[in-house]
């Protein structure tokens, strides 16, 4: 791979402008759904602002596509602000997004729990308050690989972000007020847990080199979405073994009710083909079912990625009737679409 030589296996014009160039392509590809303000580096729903509707804004470092720009549209986000690759966006972007989509009913910020994201969104919310826009911030921290304690920056926000954006987006669409929309997002976060494994490192376009060295035949267990190393390194297991490990990590922490209905989100990190992801998903469902749990809704595919990293993550959300109905509600974005 690119570690051996300085050249890369990437389709780019200039690594420095990859996010801007990618947004330009997103804009022409999905002009019916979204518009892109290249100067402000934000993605906004084509019909924004929607008067009277609570608006949802999210953002974070680029490199996790389709998140978040691919989730802008009816029933999900009103705006997304991508930073540089793996780097939190700046408050200016968040503020521009917030003012662009505010329809007078307030704005919810969905913030993944990374130091940079948290601090930049905090500064942006202060700026928005100065402009008279009510912002509710919701922190997503679902990654059980990180021990949530005084000794870390806390759990990372990973797969639950996608689910929170979908479900809170549906709540905003049905007319919930800003506090209620934020409550849905927080409920998703409190009932969802995630765990990921990596089979290779991703290669950020800026440096052109892998973030970590992982020999073939080994896996990093408990990985983050920015090449953060995981809990430990192990010999690569079978899909069945990996599924068992993921399910154990997620379910032991979530402790769902007996026979609970679940949304099972089996996510590819970017470099793992769908052929393999479905193998893993089948094993995950079997593991869950053997534990007496009931997969009721699924999302399978590359939705929160880490560039071309090989690997996968599991997110499990314990459903209730309201969350299920919100999941089934129409959505029309570049990456998720149904009922619309």
């Amino acid at each position, binding site marked *: 791979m690119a570690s051996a030589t300085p050249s890369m296996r990437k389709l780019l014009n200039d690594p420095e402008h990859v996010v801007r160039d990618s947004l330009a392509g997103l804009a022409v590809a999905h002009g019916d759904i979204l518009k892109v303000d290249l100067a402000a580096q934000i993605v906004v729903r084509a019909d924004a602002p929607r008067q009277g509707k609570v608006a949802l804004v999210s953002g974070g470092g680029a490199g996790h596509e389709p998140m978040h720009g691919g989730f802008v549209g009816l029933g999900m986000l009103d705006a997304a602000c991508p930073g540089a690759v*793996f780097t939190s966006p700046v408050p200016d972007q968040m503020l521009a997004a917030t003012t662009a989509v505010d329809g007078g009913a307030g704005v919810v910020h969905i913030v993944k729990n990374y130091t*940079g994201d948290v601090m930049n969104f905090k500064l942006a919310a202060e700026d928005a308050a100065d402009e008279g826009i009510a912002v509710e911030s919701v922190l997503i921290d679902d990654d059980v690989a990180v021990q949530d304690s005084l*000794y870390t920056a806390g759990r990372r926000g990973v797969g639950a972000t996608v689910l929170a954006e979908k479900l809170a987006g549906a709540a905003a669409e049905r007319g919930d007020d800003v506090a209620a929309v934020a409550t849905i997002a927080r409920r998703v976060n409190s009932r969802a847990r995630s765990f990921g494994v990596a089979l290779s490192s991703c290669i950020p376009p800026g440096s052109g080199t892998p973030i970590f060295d992982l020999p073939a035949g080994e896996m990093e267990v408990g990985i983050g979405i920015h090449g953060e190393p995981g809990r430990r390194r192990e010999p690569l297991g079978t899909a069945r073994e990996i599924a068992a490990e993921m399910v154990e990590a997620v379910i032991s922490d979530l402790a769902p009710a007996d026979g609970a209905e679940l949304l099972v989100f089996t996510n590819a990190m970017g470099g793992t083909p769908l052929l393999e992801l479905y193998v893993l998903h089948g094993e995950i469902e079997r593991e869950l079912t053997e534990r007496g749990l009931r997969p009721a809704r699924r999302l399978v595919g590359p939705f929160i990625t880490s560039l071309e990293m090989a690997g996968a993550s599991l997110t499990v959300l314990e459903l209730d009737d309201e969350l299920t109905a919100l999941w089934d509600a129409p959505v029309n974005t570049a990456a998720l679409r149904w009922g619309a």
Partner: protein
Amino acid sequence: MSATVSVNAWMDEAAAAITADADRLTQLDSAIGDGDHGLNLTRGFKAVVEALATGSDGLAPGRRLILAGKTLVSTVGGASGPLWGTALRRAGRSVGDAEALDGPALADALDAALAGVIELGSAEVGDKTMVDALTPAVAALRGAVEAGQPLADAIAAAAEAAAEGARSTIPLQARKGRASYLGERSIGHEDPGAASTVLLITALGRALED
């Protein structure tokens, strides 16, 4: 003690030092973070230099620091952007409308900067962050200034203390920022934010005017 610090020269020197050492910072960040620290600060200080070059005419030092801080906030992102941005904005506010950044004003400014970093990031000394370099640097500067040493010497002492603080992060286990996800595996690596702090404090010494 008649020497003062030129904000524009400080930022020019900081940008040059960061750019020259960007690869090393990125390598440090690759070991225990996400490998972008060098890129982040290079981008930010380049923007600061441009902002000051075009927009600082007639501004007092405090205003220049605020402009620099805002520019960092607006261009860096990540953890280091809001932290250093807040630091410089707080420093600028502490300087107020003073016409020059002499020793006592600089000591107050860096005190305010450190307070801003701690308020935003909640890190303590020993958490393996930039705070581990900035805290002793600020103390050393204040001590030297209060002892009546020339500003150049005071800054040298601060830079020395920052370097010492950065080195002290090597055996630590990180408790803040991305490196904390590593747990024990963060031990044995220097914190990239502490390393860049050394560069920024050292750059002060090349920004003196009489």
